[in-house]
């Protein structure tokens, strides 16, 4: 059948209808776990497999807060390979290029199912080429929390990397040799997985403040190291010198200002990309000049937001994951730098999630189409190169959703007639800002009206599409195969698009 964004969905699968269709259904909650026994402390990950009888066909989950520095998922994969456990279901919140051990497990069918929010590197390559036995499910950060709490994604054992754990099994990420800040993506796993294992390299007597409550923790494994700190914090704090990026950022900030979105109660979220960082800088300049302070900043938090919190430009930060060391330090030191769970961040069924309180969000795109649908999941050839993360969650929640991107990247125009893969529906996307002009979603007559006298270059999206083609030439249309290798789930669990096999 054809879903609400005109995409094919196989019969029998729940098809996406609209971005607010979730309101027609009630929240479903399974019981939170009741721990029977005391937290056990172990020295090897291997011993947890015997203790919890981890066997063929089970579901194991992980979080990605240690990003490219994570060694926990690598170590669990080694145990699986040694024991040759088959047909496992993996549910990491994201998959990074350093998670190389998963590749062999997929090829040997030790792992045959995967749920995740974002993936790139070698794992995404082998999945794109069709080596995962069952379809890959890519959901959003908020959608993952929803599917765990509802029992749709049932986790047998959660292996949660945790920088510091105390003798009661409480855990925090705010300090220690592998400090990564908040652990927001793992909270649903902690509360709803049948068994929870914290993996740490630092044990202390007693934590006064913790994000992981030991009441949910069945076992703690103490290893030499859970991660390499160089890979944990990424991102650059240096302002880009790229003139195209700066031009986009400037026009974006000016559009936001012209729309009247910078006011005493405003809140914002941006990605951690170079252009986003520049937008944050320009917004800060506007706030300093107009002496306007906002309500909160949220997201993956970077040092730019920390600086604005410290300057009093925001009252609070809501942080699901820290992107750099300044953010980790601020989360540790500053009470107004608050942790939020993935559910509090973007679960459509959460009572008043943070994403619904955002004035505006600034997001990237691999492709945007004439209906404003956005793809951040695959490239234009269909290779998986990312995923929603919180993209679809905050695009729906925010009052104004802005996509920023160069009009073409190394000759490939970003605006397509139809995106290769729909990640975020066009109904939730309001503005596209490129270096050659801004397009406003025709649904948002109000925004178009407010930008009319701004002096900014406003175009129809089709005009920008034509401008790009005049410059680059018309790219050849790519035909995808018809072999489905996965599904993109919207935050409510419906299928917004399918993922198709690419040639190796």
């Amino acid at each position, binding site marked *: 059948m054809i879903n609400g964004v005109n995409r094919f969905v196989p019969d029998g699968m729940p098809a996406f209808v609209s971005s607010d269709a979730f309101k027609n259904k009630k929240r479903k909650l399974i019981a939170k776990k009741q721990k029977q026994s005391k937290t056990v402390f172990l020295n090897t990950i291997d011993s947890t497999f015997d203790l919890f009888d981890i066997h063929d066909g089970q579901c194991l989950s992980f979080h990605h807060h240690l990003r490219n520095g994570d060694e926990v998922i690598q170590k669990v994969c080694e145990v699986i390979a040694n024991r040759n456990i088959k047909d496992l279901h993996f549910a990491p919140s994201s998959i990074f290029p350093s998670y190389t051990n998963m590749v062999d497990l997929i090829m040997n069918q030790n792992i045959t199912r995967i749920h995740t929010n974002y993936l790139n590197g070698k794992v995404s390559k082998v999945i794109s080429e069709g080596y995962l036995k069952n379809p890959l499910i890519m959901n959003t950060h908020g959608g993952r929390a929803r599917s765990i709490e509802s029992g749709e994604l049932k986790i047998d054992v959660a292996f949660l990397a945790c920088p510091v754990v105390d003798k009661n099994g409480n855990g925090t990420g705010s300090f220690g040799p592998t400090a990564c800040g908040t652990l927001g993506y793992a909270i649903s796993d902690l509360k709803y997985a049948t068994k929870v294992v914290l993996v740490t390299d630092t044990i202390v007597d007693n934590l006064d403040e913790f994000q992981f409550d030991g009441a949910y923790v069945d076992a703690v494994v103490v290893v030499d190291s859970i991660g390499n700190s160089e890979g944990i914090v990424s991102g650059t704090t240096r302002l880009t010198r790229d003139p195209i990026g700066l031009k986009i950022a400037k026009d974006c900030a000016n559009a936001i200002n012209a729309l009247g979105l910078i006011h005493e109660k405003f809140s914002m979220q941006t990605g951690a990309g170079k252009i986003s960082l520049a937008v944050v800088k320009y917004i800060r300049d506007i706030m300093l000049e107009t002496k306007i302070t906002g309500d909160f900043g949220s997201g993956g938090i970077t040092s730019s937001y920390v600086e604005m919190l410290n300057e009093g430009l925001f009252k609070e930060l809501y942080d699901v994951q820290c992107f750099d060391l300044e953010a980790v330090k601020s989360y540790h030191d500053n009470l107004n730098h608050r942790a939020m769970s993935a559910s509090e961040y973007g679960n459509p069924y959460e009572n008043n999630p943070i994403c619904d309180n955002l004035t505006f969000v600034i997001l990237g795109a691999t492709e945007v189409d004439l209906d404003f649908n956005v793809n951040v999941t695959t490239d*234009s050839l269909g290779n998986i190169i990312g995923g929603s993360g919180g993209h679809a969650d905050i695009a729906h929640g925010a009052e104004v959703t802005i996509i920023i991107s160069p009009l073409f990247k*190394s*000759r*490939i125009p970003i605006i397509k007639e139809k995106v290769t893969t729909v990640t975020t529906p066009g109904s939730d996307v309001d503005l596209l800002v490129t270096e050659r002009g801004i397009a406003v979603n025709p649904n948002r007559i109000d925004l178009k009206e407010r930008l009319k006298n701004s002096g900014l270059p406003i175009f129809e999206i089709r005009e920008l599409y034509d401008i790009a083609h005049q410059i680059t*030439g018309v790219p050849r249309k790519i035909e995808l195969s018809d072999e489905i290798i996965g599904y993109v789930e919207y935050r409510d669990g419906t299928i917004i698009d399918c993922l198709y096999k690419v040639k190796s």
Partner: protein
Amino acid sequence: MKIGTAGSKESNDCFVTVRESDKTDIIIDSVVAAFFYDQIKTTVEETLKEMKIENVIVTIEDKGALDYTIKSRLISAIKRMK
């Protein structure tokens, strides 16, 4: 054997090598080949024709250059070969 090169492997540029040969051959290695292979090939063929050049092996290592960039790099490489 006469040989000429021009351009760079920076983004939006291309590196062109032209070699004398007994037949004409065009080899395109482009980051955007899936989308623009034919267009790049046509640009190279038309430029060779305009300059009345035959019997060369043209290698284009392309990082997303626009047609006029490819054309100008190719002309420079040919002139440098002479």
